[in-house]
């Protein structure tokens, strides 16, 4: 462990110099800028209703994303595992979902803004696609982690295809629900920045206020967003504990 710490320390030191982070002047300037920035911050209570609306829109985008994405994953995950589908098909579906998963949600948002125009619909579709690719992986890994004896006992009596997938999903349903809740948390955080590319939600408003340098409005939106994200995280955590 000490060796690893020493390696990380050495890499940080070398790259700090390379990135210009070793200069003391940089930090003096950063402290001055932070002071100026803090003077511009504030909280605009008059924007609260608007901010809450925006946050609600973000939540709707996230919820739609996890719902449609979850449904797609329920269909595709069984096709992604040789436990249920023929090996050729399972590897093809797995490779396709892996390829789609490498594209960040914000790029999918740009893609859907081009297809359906700016607004929450583009964000919702982007998150649905992104969620499905992630849940496919999490779901098929959960299915493949099922004890071999359960799988054998079901296959031995002729259960295969969708009924086999349904029985295995029932067996791992705690993990499945936990993954879905985790993706909802993830989507809420991701959806806050989708507005930066015109895909709806709170990010769109933050970008607008940033462009007119109204940092008090930005602060208001950021505070409401942080409270909202923390509330979702806590709720999701409590729900997952109860599963």
């Amino acid at each position, binding site marked *: 462990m000490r060796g690893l710490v020493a390696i990380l320390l050495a890499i940080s030191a070398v790259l700090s110099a390379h990135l210009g982070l070793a200069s003391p002047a940089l930090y003096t300037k950063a402290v001055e800028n932070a002071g100026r920035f803090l003077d511009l911050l504030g909280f605009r209570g008059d924007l609260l209703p608007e901010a809450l609306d925006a946050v609600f829109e973000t939540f709707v985008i996230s919820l739609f994303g996890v719902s449609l994405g979850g449904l797609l994953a329920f269909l595709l995950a069984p096709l992604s595992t040789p436990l249920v589908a023929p090996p050729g098909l399972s590897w093809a579906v797995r490779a396709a979902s892996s390829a789609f998963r490498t594209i960040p949600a914000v790029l999918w948002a740009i893609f859907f803004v081009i297809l359906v125009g700016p607004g929450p619909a583009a964000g919702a579709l982007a998150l649905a696609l992104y969620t499905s690719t992630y849940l496919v992986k999490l779901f098929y890994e959960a299915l493949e982690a099922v004890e071999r004896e359960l799988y054998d006992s*079901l296959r*031995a009596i*002729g259960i295969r295809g*969708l*009924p086999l997938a349904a029985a295995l999903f*029932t*067996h791992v349903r705690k993990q499945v629900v936990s993954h879905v809740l985790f993706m909802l948390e993830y989507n809420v955080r991701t959806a806050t920045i989708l507005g930066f590319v015109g895909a709806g939600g709170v990010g769109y408003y933050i970008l607008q206020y940033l462009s007119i340098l109204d940092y008090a409005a930005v602060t208001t939106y950021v505070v409401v967003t942080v409270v909202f994200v923390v509330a979702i995280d806590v709720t999701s955590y409590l729900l997952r504990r109860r599963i």
Partner: protein
Amino acid sequence: MPAMLESLAVSKATLEAREVYFSYGSGDLLRGVSLVVEPGDTIAIMGRSGSGKTTLLKLLAGLLKPRAGVVRVLGCEVGHPCFESVRRRLAYIPQSLGLVSGASALYNVLLGRAASHPLRFLTGLWPRRAVEEALEALRAVGLDSKARSSVDRLSGGERQRVAIARALFQGASVVLADEPVSNLDADTAAEVAKLLVEPSRRGTSIIAVLHDQDIAFEFFKRVYLLNGGVLKEL
């Protein structure tokens, strides 16, 4: 004549293993194992740990293919396309019981007919008669009052009974059970063994891997010992 019917015409055995050899890679674990099981037979297979009892049971269930030799169940050879339909009449109870965790006892029993009625199983829309039959199977093992209980909340003996009820509801012609009474106290083990062999009265063949000699000789008509890859009747 289809392969399955053709074979049935020449043999009334529900299960046959002929000169079966099996290896996991280095050396044969099973060396020329033969076994003929007639309808209503109750067979106990004993042997030391690692002697290949579970492997033999998996071969009989069509979960493994022999290196050499033939396994036929209800006249159909393991690996032949007809075996997929034979599976519906074959119950397999692994040592861990193969119950779906978190689901009710009734759900686990209904699984016994998921292969023959996949749509009913997927939608959960079973006809009233099928549900009554499933409850009847649970009643036969004394668990009808716990039909809606999660199998996770049942005791070891009760979970064994759910697995047996699934085989009863499935209407299996052959039941293969791996260590069905292990980890149970003597009284419960005897009760479970009695329930397990009960369907043999109606012609179902029961083959169980056992460690307990007393249970084997008390409840099973034929007892075999698997030793050194060879199966011998005791």
